[in-house]
């Protein structure tokens, strides 16, 4: 009871302090009043501290089973294991919003502590924008969707959590992906602040890039963990379904990927300034828009957050963000100017530009597919697109991006000549070799014959670059680790692409009903059903089937929860061989002693997880301890002056 009052109080105090910080920071920044800029920043820290207090109170309420709070009742019960009770914090609509706000407050404070070098004005405006965003979230939490709502009667036990979510993945995937979402607000705030202040220099690029990298890395990890969880827990044999929830996480990732590449053009050549501002802003707008459509229930999705009243609030917030940042970009963007000098199409900067356009093209395809139900619903009967739409429309774009990954790193800045053509012989030869190999191996799917050789040639480019450096001077790999870290990330991505290509185009599946002793063979792998056993546990009944596979026994199982109206929960059994996952789902047991299975053989799925880890490793290794993210610009002291 008391926790509920304290929590609601902390949220309200946070709204007041955040609002105060926002107004004061904008005013002080405009007047360049150092004292009040300082006060405004401390106001943000105070609002962030209130968010931390509210979060701690909710966690305490969950762990002490304070069933006077509706949120605690709806998301946990006394039998829930403690780690999952703690995870209940971000398991529901209100709590996940509070978690999001917490990340925004903490990372926002960290970004402001380090912002003094950027100049008083940018720092003050960034504080104001971050404080405004934080206040919006705290306001929604305090007024519209509060996790601290009290029940008039305290029930003896809670409702518990859905069995589907009773899994270790629940402890890691949601917090990472939500933190990723929240962190896109920081580059956005600094980009808008620089536009407002009319000034941005090398220190600003480094600062914005650092937080964009953080957001990107968290989002990469969140996407991969989500795929891993879907694959291992949900039992449909795949890892990506083009569901709106997945799409809205992918789009800001794509936009930020584009930014991380094009920002180099700004660092090295002083070009694409307005475009870079636009990408950072776009990533955050996609986050807000995605949050709106996923959490308000306006598009049909297999994930349903409880439909609550936050929809209109988020729509208004999205609208305000579009007007504010779009207006800034329109007013200031034109004055950003383009550096003079030659810019031939075939050059590193040309490759970056094309890659950016293609990535934004993918965003457009995914966005259209995601909002189609909304748009068509307004015009008539609601229509939806399935996976084939996304695959057909994004496939050629992804193939072109892979080709650029093979060519782009070998192109010099400014212009390309004969040496470049010579350098391209390795990736080209690799692509042809792999193509021939796949053809001989009997692969006839055109998309697979396109994707895998292109990925291989992109890998060959990375190997070429590392080889060149190793022959010339191996120390350069450490000294210029940002560049070589990025190549390592490319290599990881190549491995991911091969894994996706192989498992997507090579997946085999079979539905079978077997009597004990009978077997089934799927793409050369033979499994024999040995019989099933039933286990009665306190709240559910579990059927475990034995499937002999070589010298091991796989045990897919199916639990039935009588208390939850007979809801079932399947446990997939996966055996990973060197080239494929054998993936067995127990679909059901029958009265005559037989059991029904769905068996998948998924080639090279493990490459996706391994490659994903390499991507993150490359980005982290490449950027840890980088003193200046914009060495060229800092050395040459090129200021980027915007019209005031």
């Amino acid at each position, binding site marked *: 009871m008391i926790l509920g009052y304290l929590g609601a109080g902390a949220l309200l105090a946070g709204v007041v302090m955040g609002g105060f910080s926002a107004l004061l920071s904008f005013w002080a920044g405009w007047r360049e009043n150092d004292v009040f800029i300082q006060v405004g920043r401390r106001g943000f820290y105070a609002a962030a501290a209130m968010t931390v207090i509210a979060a701690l109170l909710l966690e305490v309420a969950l762990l002490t089973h304070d069933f006077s709070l509706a949120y605690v009742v709806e998301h946990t019960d006394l039998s829930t294991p403690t780690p999952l009770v703690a995870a209940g914090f971000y398991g529901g609509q209100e709590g996940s919003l509070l978690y999001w706000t917490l990340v925004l407050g903490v990372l926002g404070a960290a970004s402001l502590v380090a912002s003094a070098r950027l100049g008083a004005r940018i720092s003050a405006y960034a504080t104001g924008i971050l404080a405004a965003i934080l206040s919006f979230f705290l306001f929604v939490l305090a007024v519209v969707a509060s996790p601290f709502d009290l029940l008039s009667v305290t029930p003896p036990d809670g*409702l518990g959590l*859905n069995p589907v979510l009773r899994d270790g993945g629940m402890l890691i995937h949601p917090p990472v992906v939500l933190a990723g979402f929240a962190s896109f607000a920081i580059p956005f705030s600094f980009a808008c602040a620089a536009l407002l202040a009319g000034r941005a220099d090398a220190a600003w690029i480094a600062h914005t890039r650092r937080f964009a990298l953080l957001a990107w890395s968290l989002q990469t990890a969140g996407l991969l963990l989500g795929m891993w969880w879907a694959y291992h827990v949900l*039992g449909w044999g795949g890892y990506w379904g083009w569901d709106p929830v997945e799409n809205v996480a992918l789009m800001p990732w794509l936009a930020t990927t584009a930014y991380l590449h094009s920002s180099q053009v700004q660092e090295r050549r002083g070009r694409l300034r307005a475009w870079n501002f636009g990408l950072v802003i776009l990533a955050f707008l996609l986050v807000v828009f995605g949050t709106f459509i996923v959490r308000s229930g306006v598009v049909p999705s297999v994930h349903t957050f409880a439909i609550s009243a936050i929809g209109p609030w988020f729509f208004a917030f999205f609208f305000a963000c579009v007007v504010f940042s779009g207006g800034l970009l329109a007013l200031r963007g034109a004055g950003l100017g383009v550096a*003079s000098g030659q810019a031939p199409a075939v050059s590193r900067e040309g490759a970056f530009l094309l890659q950016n356009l293609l990535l934004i*093209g993918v965003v457009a395809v995914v966005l259209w597919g995601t909002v189609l139900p909304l748009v068509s619903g307004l015009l008539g009967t*609601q229509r939806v697109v399935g996976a084939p739409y996304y695959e057909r429309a994004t496939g050629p774009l992804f193939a072109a991006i892979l080709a650029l990954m093979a060519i782009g790193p070998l192109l010099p800045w400014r212009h390309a000549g004969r040496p470049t053509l010579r350098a391209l012989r390795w990736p080209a030869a690799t692509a042809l070799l792999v193509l021939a190999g796949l053809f001989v191996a009997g692969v006839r799917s055109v998309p697979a014959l396109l994707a895998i050789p292109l990925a291989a040639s992109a890998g060959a480019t990375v190997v070429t670059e590392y080889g060149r450096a190793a022959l010339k001077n191996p120390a350069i790999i450490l000294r210029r680790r940002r560049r070589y870290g990025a190549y390592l990330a490319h290599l990881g991505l190549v491995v991911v692409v091969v894994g996706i290509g192989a498992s997507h185009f090579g997946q085999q599946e079979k539905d079978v009903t077997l009597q004990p002793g009978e077997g089934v063979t799927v793409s050369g792998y033979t499994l024999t059903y040995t019989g099933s056993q039933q286990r009665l546990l306190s709240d559910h009944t579990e059927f475990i089937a034995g499937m002999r596979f070589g010298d091991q026994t796989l045990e897919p199982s199916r639990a039935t929860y009588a208390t939850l109206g007979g809801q079932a929960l399947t446990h997939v059994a996966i055996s990973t061989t060197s080239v494929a996952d054998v993936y067995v789902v127990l679909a059901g047991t029958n009265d005559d002693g037989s059991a029904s299975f769905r068996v998948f053989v998924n080639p090279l799925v493990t490459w996706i997880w391994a490659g994903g880890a390499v991507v993150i490793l490359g980005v982290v290794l490449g950027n840890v301890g980088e003193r200046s993210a914009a060495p060229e610009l800092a050395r040459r002291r090129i200021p980027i002056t915007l019209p005031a």
Partner: protein
Amino acid sequence: MMQALKWAIPAVIVAGCVGYLIYSASGGATEYYVTVSQLQTQAPSGDVRVAGVVQNDVQKSGGLHVTFTEKDGTASMPVEYAGTLPDIFRPGITVVAEGRLGSDGVFHARTLLAKCPSRFSTQPYTQ
């Protein structure tokens, strides 16, 4: 001016390609998303997705084959499906069946999606 043109040309070309890809890919892949009553009154051609609540008459036969009735506020229809059922499939939950309505009035589902609970609770607590 020449500079601006140089950046604009590839942008226009890529935008054109993306537009064409969206147009051509949505050609065969768009499906109507309707309720049971809309399906029965409008009868759109091709594959559709139909959302409705599973009724109490779930019949399983021969391993993976299942028939049940799907109902929205007013209308209901029999559904026939063969394959793995979603975990949370049971009477009372909302499912989205993807397939087509046969001339016999039975909906032949190709895939069956259940609304995934992205939250802990099974239902909101009501006093």
